[in-house]
C-alpha cells in the first residue's frame, strides 16, 4: 500500500509539473505563432484587396 501511495503521488506530481511546464511553453511560444499567423493573414487580405481594387479600375 505504501509503495502504491508513493507511486500514485509520483504520477500526480509528474503530471502536475509537466502540465505547468508545457502550458507555459505553449502559451508563450503559441503567442508568437499566433502573431505571425495573424500578420500573414492580414498581409494576404491587404494584397487581395489591392488586387481587387486594381481589377475594378
Amino acid at each position: 500500500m505504501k509503495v502504491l501511495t508513493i507511486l500514485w503521488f509520483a504520477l500526480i506530481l509528474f503530471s502536475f509539473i509537466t502540465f505547468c511546464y508545457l502550458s507555459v511553453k505553449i502559451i508563450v511560444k503559441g503567442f508568437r505563432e499566433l502573431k505571425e499567423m495573424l500578420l500573414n493573414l492580414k498581409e494576404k487580405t491587404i494584397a487581395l484587396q489591392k488586387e481587387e481594387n486594381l481589377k475594378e479600375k
Partner: protein
Amino acid sequence: MNLCLLDWVIVCLSIIVAMIAGSAVKKFIGGISDYLVANRSMGFHLGLLSLMCTEIGMITYMYFAELGYNAGFSALIIGLPPFIAFIFLGKTGFILKPLLDMKIMTLPEFFSRKFGRGVRFYVGILMAVGGVLNFGVFPGIEARFINIITGIPEKHILLTMVILLSIVLIYTFIGGMVSVIITNYIQYTFLSIGMILITSFGIFQIGIPNIVDSVKLSLGEGGMNPFFPNIIKGEFGLGFIVWQLLLWTAMLTSWQVVAIRIFSAKDSATGKKIFTWSSLMFLSRAILPIFWGIMAFSYIGGNKDPLTSLPVMLAKITPHGILGILLGALLAASMSTYASYLLSWSSVISQDLVGTIIKFITKKEISSKTQIFISRMCLVALVLFIIWWSLFHELQGYLYFYLNMTVMIFVPGTLIGVGLGIYWKKARSWGAYSAFTLGAIPPLLYFLPNSPPTSMLGWGSFVLAFIGMVGGSVLQNILQPKTQEQKVS
C-alpha cells in the same frame, strides 16, 4: 448564490473578450478555405494548444472526477492508456503515415476510396448514431455543473441548458469556425490557470495525509490497487487495460477532432511530433481531474452523488474571484467544444446521410441553397434532440464508460477497417460491412439491462470486428474474386 458580483463580472468578461477577439480576426479571413489554410500553417505549439482546448470541457472534468470519487487512486490508471497510445502512434506512425502519404483528410474519404461509397454511407450512419448519443448527454451534465457552482436551484436545469445552448449558437455565429484558433488561445490561458489553481487549492485546503487516509479507510485496498482482488477480476484489470489501449489507438486515428491535426500537418514529422507531445498533455488531462475527484471524496464524504462531487467541492474551496476565472474558462472551453461538435455531427447527418439519400432518390446534384437549408434543419433537430436526451436519459454506471461505449459503436470497425485496409491486400468491402456490424453489437448491448462487464464488451467488440473483417473479406474473395483490373487499381 455561490458566485459574488466579481465572479459574475469575470465570467461575462471572459466570454465577451473571447467573442470580440474572435470577431476581430474574422475580417481578415475570407472563408472556410482560409481557415483550413491557416490551420495547415498552424505551428506546433498552437496546434497542441488548440487540440487540448477542444478536448477539454466541463464534462471532461466531471467524468474523470466521478471515477476518482468512486474508485480512489486506482482510477489514476485510466490516464496511462492514452499516454501509451499517443507515444506508440507518434513514434511508429502506425496507420497515420500511410494515410498521410495517401493525402487523406478524413476517414470516410479512405473508406470511400478503398471499399466504395456504400461503406462510407454505412460508416456515416454509425458515426451519426454514436456521435449524437455521445454528445446528447453534454448539456444536461454541464448545466448541472453550472447550477451547482453558481448556486442556481437544480429545478432550473432546462433553463440553464437553453441559455447555455443559446450562448453557444450566438458564439458560433459571431466567432465562427474561422476564428476558433484565437478564441482557443484565450480559453487555454484561462483553463491552464484554473487547473493549476484547483490542484493547488485542493492540496493546501485538504492536505495530502487526509486525502490518503480517507481513501484507505473507506475504499481499502481497492482504492489504491487497480488490480484488486487480482489482475483478471479487478475493475481496472487486464481486460480494461487491453480495451482502453485499443480504444485510444482507434480514437486517435478515427476521432475527427484529433485526426484533423495530423492529417492537416505540414508533414508526417510535424504530425508525429504533435502526437508525441500530446501524450504528456493527455496524461495530465486525465490525472489531475481524477485527483480532484479523490480530493472531493476526502472533502465532502463518500455518500454524495459522484458526478456532482467536483462542482460541490469547487464551490466550497475556491475563493471568490478565482471561482469566476474558473467558471469563465470552463464555460468558454465548453463552448468551443459545443461549436465544433454541433457543426461536425450536424454536417455528418446533413451531408453524409440526408444529402446522399436525397441524391440517390432524385438522381440529381443538390443545389447549394438546398444544402444550406438541410444543414440548418439538421442543426436545429440536433439541438432539440440533445435537450430531450439530456432531460430524459438516465445514466447508469460511470459517465466515462457511457461516453466510451457510444463512441465504440463505430470505433472498432474503423480501426480494424483502416488497419487491415492499409496493411492487408485481401481486405474487401464485405469485410468492412461485417467489421462495422459485428463491432457495433457489444456497445449496443451495454445499453440493455444486465449487460456483461463493460471491459469485456469493450475488447470483445474489437475481436468481433476483426473476425468480421477477415471472414467477410475471405468470403467475398471466394465468391467474387477480384478482376485483374481491380487488382491493379
